[in-house]
Every structure is written in structure tokens, then in C-alpha cells.
């Protein structure tokens, strides 16, 4: 094998290792969590999804709940083409856990400028935690195309 070939092989391997290290660093050291299935909506035979969602905690009481010191849970129901509730207020610096589901088609849940980004699949509960350090108004945007008024599907998150 020529010297150049060896160099290239070593370099390629090094690049791949660097990628993996960056990936591990992001997930472990920076606590970047990926959305996971936090649960399913139990649907009885013949029942429609909306009814099933509204009968399942915490979606029977959508909105902000304090679940511990400096910890809040925000239950949100997505429906074409709005979120319920549409205006949410949480304190700055607290750990906010979004618990979201959809009652009709697949929706998105994105807060620009943060790493909050989930797909909302009907029948599944999506869950993600985030700490908003800077107070201000954040916009929740549906970023999964969901029909004619997709672009109007937004909500406001106020961090005080």
C-alpha cells in the first residue's frame, strides 16, 4: 500500500470516529434528547381518536401543570389547524416538559431557536423537555404539512 493511500485510510477512519464522538458528546454531555414514544393513546374499537385523546390524562386537562420544584408539564393537543391551548406561559429557567399529541393527522411541533422539534403522530404521545433561559415570546409552529391552512397553525409560548 502506498503512503498516500495509508494516509487517506487513516484520515477517513479518523473523520468517522470524530463524527461518532461528536454524536456521543451531543447526546451524553449536552443532554440532547431525542423525542421518544412517551406512550400511546388507548383507543377502544369504534372510538374516534379525538374522543380517545380527551379521555386520556393529561390531555383531559390541557395546559401547564407544576409537577415539581422548577418543573412544569405542558399538555398540548394538536388539531388541524391549531394547538390547544394556543397561549402558554411558563417561568424562565424552569424545566418544561411538553407532552403533545394529535387528534387527526400527523402534525409537527417546533419552537424556532430551540431544539424543541417533534413529529406528532395521531395515536402516539410525543414528549420532550427543555429549559427556556431567556424570557420572551416564543412561537410554536407546525412544521409537518397538514393541509390547506398548515401555515396558520401556530401557538405562542410566553416565558416570564
Amino acid at each position, binding site marked *: 500500500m502506498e503512503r498516500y493511500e495509508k494516509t487517506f485510510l487513516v484520515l477517513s477512519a479518523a473523520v468517522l470516529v470524530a463524527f461518532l464522538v*461528536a*454524536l456521543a458528546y451531543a447526546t451524553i454531555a449536552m443532554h*440532547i434528547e431525542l423525542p421518544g414514544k412517551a406512550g400511546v393513546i388507548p383507543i377502544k374499537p369504534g372510538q374516534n381518536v379525538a374522543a380517545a385523546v380527551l379521555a386520556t390524562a393529561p390531555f383531559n386537562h390541557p395546559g401547564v401543570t407544576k409537577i415539581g420544584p422548577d418543573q412544569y408539564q405542558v399538555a398540548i393537543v394538536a388539531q388541524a389547524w391549531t394547538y390547544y391551548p394556543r397561549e402558554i406561559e411558563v417561568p424562565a429557567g424552569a424545566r418544561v416538559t411538553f407532552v403533545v399529541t394529535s387528534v387527526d393527522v400527523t402534525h409537527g411541533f417546533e419552537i424556532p431557536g430551540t431544539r424543541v422539534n417533534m413529529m406528532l403522530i395521531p395515536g402516539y404521545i410525543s414528549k420532550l423537555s427543555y429549559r427556556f433561559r431567556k424570557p420572551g415570546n416564543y412561537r410554536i409552529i407546525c*412544521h409537518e404539512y397538514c393541509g390547506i391552512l*398548515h401555515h396558520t397553525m401556530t401557538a405562542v409560548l410566553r416565558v416570564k
Partner: protein
Amino acid sequence: MAAQPKPLPVEGPHYLEGGGILGWLTTVDHKRVAVLYGVTALLLMLVGGTEAMLIRTQLMRPDNHVLTAAWYNQIFTMHGTTMIFLVIMPLETGFFANFLIPLQIGARDVAFPRINALSYWLFLAGAVFMHLGLVTHVLNLGTVPSGLPNAGWFGYANLTESQYSPGLNIDFWDIGLLILGVSSVLAALNFFVTIVNMRAPGMTFMRMPMFMWAILVTTILILLAFPALTVGLIFLFLDRFFGTHFYRVTAGATPILWQHLFWIFGHPEVYIMALPAFGMISEILPVFSRKPLFGYPMMAYSLVLIAFLSYGVWGHHMFATGMGPIADATFAITSMLIAIPTGIKVFSWIATVWGGRLRFTTAMLFALAFIIEFTIGGLSGIMHASAPIDLQQTDSYFVVAHFHYVLGGGVLFAILGAFYYWCPKISGRMLDETLGKWQFWLLVIGFNLTFFPMHWLGTWGMPRRIYTYAPGMGWSTLNFVETIGAYIQAVSFIVFFANILLTLRRGEKAAADPWDGRTLEWSVASPPPAYNFAVLPEGGSRDDFWVQKYGTLAGAHGGGSSAAGATAAAHAAAEAAEHIHMPAPSLYPLLFALGVFLMGVGALAWLRIVILGGMVVALSIIAMAFEYPAHGEEAAESEPVFYRGVDNRKAGMWAFLGSECVFFTALISTYMVYKSRNLAGPDAQILNIPLTSFSTFILLMSSLLMVLALAAFRRGDDKWGRIWLLGTAGFGCIFLGGQVYEFTDFYLQGLYMQTNIFGQTFYTLVGTHGFHVFIGVCWLVTLAIAGFLGKIDSKRSLAVEIAGLYWHFVDVVWIVIFTLVYLMRTVKHA
């Protein structure tokens, strides 16, 4: 090799001359079919490009209302669908590959010329079908207003269900894609067999032009990827027309099924578009650098490696669905791995150019720009492999930037380069280089101005597929800049189309070998004669034509081909040309496609049209079968064409069965996934094991009879051959009878396809297999009748052998189904 007469240009009619309109409608010449593909795809490129301009005009300013939201959604859906299925794929595979495969491997035509024509007409039928929404919109047909498809090119379930998309829009998309899928698989099968089986005698795999390698791997990808999409589309069709629940949440089903099926197809699809572009670049760079391609073996292996890995990366489209840490990690690593073979290609291209004597023709400029633009797209692609980063970018404009760098700056630049490079061969005229350079620079500026800022917009959170956005988001300036860039691209394409039109009218006549090319297509006249090669080339070395001209692979200092032998060779060639039998034209591919189109229209409008269409299809198939009654004999008598090993038809059957494997795998996987999600009603406990065991035994025994039938025909015992054939068909009928009894029994017990997800997956899987058995029985009976008419003897036992391959395959599939569905019915899956 030296003893072989040089296949030099022959004076005579070229493939474009004569025939009139009927000649074009009935053509089976791969070059004419390619031109039909090319013209259609260029027209559709105008459509798709106009759609892009409308999208960018709408997004030029915040709160803009140039289009209505309803139109915007239809237009972005059709922009994606058109560019992928109706422009890039047909231009690469249908146009360039179709034209160049026989010319580059030294053959007279593709393996199945009529299937080639059929692929084109089906493509046209699918393309027109996709746009029927315009007709229903204008005439206001249907119970609810309908227009063009409007659920995105990815058509995510469950938005596509009739509950949420009641119009015909999605039906046009669903059925149109099904038709296009059949067209693509047929074309891929055809090209695969051609490349594997019909290369010139001396052309081993490692001597093929790199474009042929790319197309060979692409055809395998098409054969093994499209069935997954077909299954997904069939489920959608059943949901919309028969009220099943494949993607509905209510019955325990989940819309995620669509995402898996779609991306198992969808990621290989990216490479179905990218690999031919890699191949084109690998042809253009060596010619204009006057150096052989660097690292040929690695270039070939890396294509295979990319294809292999491309089936294991679909999950990186789905990080945001929440697949869990193990799946996320697996897909992250496979997605990073695929960057390695791609990196090998980029470095090899650079090394090819390195130290070469470069000629900056328009084709070369596009090829060089390809390397840069594609690498930018590739780098943002590697970012997507990292799940945490991808999560930030999912459904944002960053992704739009990424795949436009891959498919626009990458694939489209390669296609444009290929136009400038191969247009002289195809049309016989040179595209204007001055206009070409104007087009190139306008496109480079416009392209980067449009798509580079999208990286920033995406990072700032601008989502994809939005009709409009609020003024205060900070996205307005860059969106305005992007639209200006898009308009510059539009000007560039106006220059391109003007160049094509001017060239065809009064462009400079092209010589046979205007670029000092390296591969065999440059050894024939421009445009080539209908039979391609008067004397089939030997193809004894890599870059065969170059070696013929200069004696060595690397050297470019030889004296060129000797003019002395040219005249003698031309005479010999002209003499040989008189004995060439080309396949006769046929109208039936066109009729077949028309029938399919009618069936599609009928499904939406009036059931009787489906029956009419079906009859047209059936009659076309029968007519095609009788068109050349003595096919085998005639082929044997005419000038010998070189085949490697197996017969084309047998190789085609193997390729088809490979595709079928993926089809059944998708159906069986769906059954397995949905089995444990059944909410209510009958489940696998209803299955009657003793009865099915009996019919399984019968089906397996039928394979034994099939073996006996083939053996009898081979040893010339026609009587017993016919008896065993009928016996096989009879056993097939007993099996089908058992299935009819089983289905009726379940039906009476209240298990319909709509009852629950067990019912729908069971009936689809087992019913599809039953349909395969039915087709097999029809085939065997036809063969037996042909046997009684004395048409099958030991020389033509191949027909029985091919039917046997199919029959054994269907049996093997049944063993899998019987084991997984029936015998393991009580096994629960998590």
C-alpha cells in the same frame, strides 16, 4: 483484438430518418424511445420549473397572496413529484441510459425492445394521469372540488386518507405513481438484462464504461426499491376505495407504516437519481481531462457499496417520529457510513482531473461544478446523519437547501453536462458553446443565490411547505434574495431551451467523435444508424474506442486512427448491414399503456371503463405474444447476436422475481407488524390449519410435477410434458379452490377486509399470493395448449423453464406465508 475490423462510421440513413408519425408511435428502437422520453421529460421540466417559479414568487415577501393556499399546496406537491418522477428519473434512465446502453456496450438494441416502448408509454400515461386534476378542476367534475395532488411528494399518511383529503387529488397521485412504478420497474428490468447479458464479447464487467456501472447498479436499486412504494400505494388505494384501515388510527393501525414503506423506497430513490449522475460525471471528466478515470475499480465498488448501504439508512428521515435510542443510533451510524463510498468518488473525480490537459467546454464546466455543489449537499447530508442535529433540521428549510444541492446542484448539473456532452451524438448537431457558457454561469449564480441562504433560514427555524410567513420572523430579506436567485435560474433555463431549439434548427453538424471520446458510442456516426453498429465491436479493453484510436489507455500522443483501413472497413460494414435484422415496430405497447390509463380513469369515474381498459391490456398482451410467432427460430437464423450465458428472457424472469421478493417482504412485514395490534374481531385464531396444510401439500407437489414437465419436454417426450403441465395447473386449481373455500368461510364468519387490521392484512397478503397462483395456472394452461399445437419441443423447452421458475418462486413464497401466518399464528410479537 487488432484483427477485428474497426467499426467506423457508415454512410446511410440514421435512426431519426423516416417512419412518419406512425413510425414514432410504433417504434421499438431504443434510440427513438429515448428521444420520446427526452422530449416528454424536457416539457415536464418546463412545467416543474414554472411551478418552482410560482413557489418562489409566493414566498418572495411575507404575507404574500400571489397564489391561494390551495394552489400553493398543489404546486409544491407537483413540483417535487414532477421533478423526481417525471424529469430526473426519465431523463437519466429513460433518455440517456436508454440511448447509451446499447451504444456503450456494443449491442444493437436493448434486451426487450417492445417492453422498452411499453415503459415509455406507461410513463407518459402516468405523467398525464398525475395532471388530470387540472381537467377535473376546470370542468368542476366530481362530488367535491378536485385539483392536482396536494399532500406533498412524500404524501404522509394519514393526511392522504379520504377523511382528510376527500377530493380526487390524492387518487390521481396514488394511481399515477402506481403506473409510473410499473413503468420504472419494467425499464429497470430491461436495462439490467441488457447490461448483464448483451455486452460485447470482450467487455467484462471491469471493462464497462463507468456510466454503465452506474446504470447497472441503479436498475438493481429500482427493482428492489419500487415494490415497497407499490405496496404502500396499494394500501392507500384500498384505504381510499375500499374502506380498509392501513393508515387509520382507529383500528389499531398507524400512519407510521406509510413512513417506513415510503422511506424504504425513498432513500434508495435518492441514489436512483444520484448514481446515474455519478456515472455521467465519470464519463465527462476523463474525456475533457484526456486522462483515464482515476481508481476505476474503487469507483465501481463504491457504487455497489452505496447501493447496499442505501437500504439501511431510511430511518434518518424519521428521527423526529421518536423511534427510540437503538433505532436512532443504528440509522445514525449507517448514514455516516454511506458518506465513505461517496467520499471515495469525490476524491477519485478530483484525482481524474488532477494533472490533466483540461478543456473547459460547457459539459466540463457543469461536471466540475457538480463536484463542488454535490459535495456541499453531501456535507449537509452528513449533518443529517447525526440524530441530534437532524432533529433541529427536520422539516426546516435546511433540508430544502440540502436536497436541492444534491438533486439540483448535483444531479441536475450532471444532466445538463450530459446534454452538452451527448447531444451531438443524439441529434447530430452541436449545442452552442457560447450560449452554453451563459447558461452555466447564470445557473451557478442563480442556484447558489437561491439555495445557499436556505441553510440559514432553516437554522433560524423557517419550516418547509408553508404557504406564507409572518413579517416579524426575520426571514423576509433572505426569502427575497432567494426569489431573485430563482429568477436568474429561470433566465438560465430560457437560454438552455433556446439553445436546444436553435441547435436543432441550424446547429453545427457534429462529427462522429467531436470530443475525442473514449467509449464505443463515439465510434459510430452522429446520429447513429438504426442498427447502431454495422459490425458489432469486440470491446476488448476499458475505454475501448480510445485504445482503438491511440493504442494505449493513458497515452494521448498517438497518430489517431489510420485512414487507410477506413474505406475497406466501411465497405465491409455496409455489406454486413444488409444482413442485420432489427426488431419490427409494434403498436401494442402504446395500446397496452392506453388500456392501463383507461383502467386508472375508470377507477375514479366509471367501473365499466376499468373493464374496457383491462380488455385492451389483455388483448395487447395476447397480440404481442402472437406478433412474432416464430420468435425463437428467427432469432437463431438471423445474424448471431452475442448473449452471455443465460437467455435474456430467463435473466429477465430472475430480475422480476428479485423485485417480487421485496414486494412480498413488504406485505409479509406489514402482516407481522399489524398482527399483534388487532383491536377487536376475529384474529389469526380463525385460521383453519388442517385445510391449509392439505392445500399447501398440494401446492408443493405441483412443483414436483413442474419439474417432471420440464424434464419431459427436454428429453423430447412432448406427450408426458403436456400431461405434467396440466397436472401442475390442476394442482394449482385445487390450491385455489381451497383458498376460495377458506375466504368464503371467513366471509360468512363476518371477517371482511374492512373488519379489522387482521382482516385487511390477511386478505391482502394471502389474496395477492392467490392472484400469483392464478396467473401461474393461466400461464401453464397456455403452455399446455401450445404444447398440443406442437409449438413446444425440446429446442423450445425454455418457455416451460421460465414458467417453472415463476411457479417454484410462488411455491416458495407460500412456504414462507404458511409458516409465518398459519403455523406461527399464536406467536405474539411485541
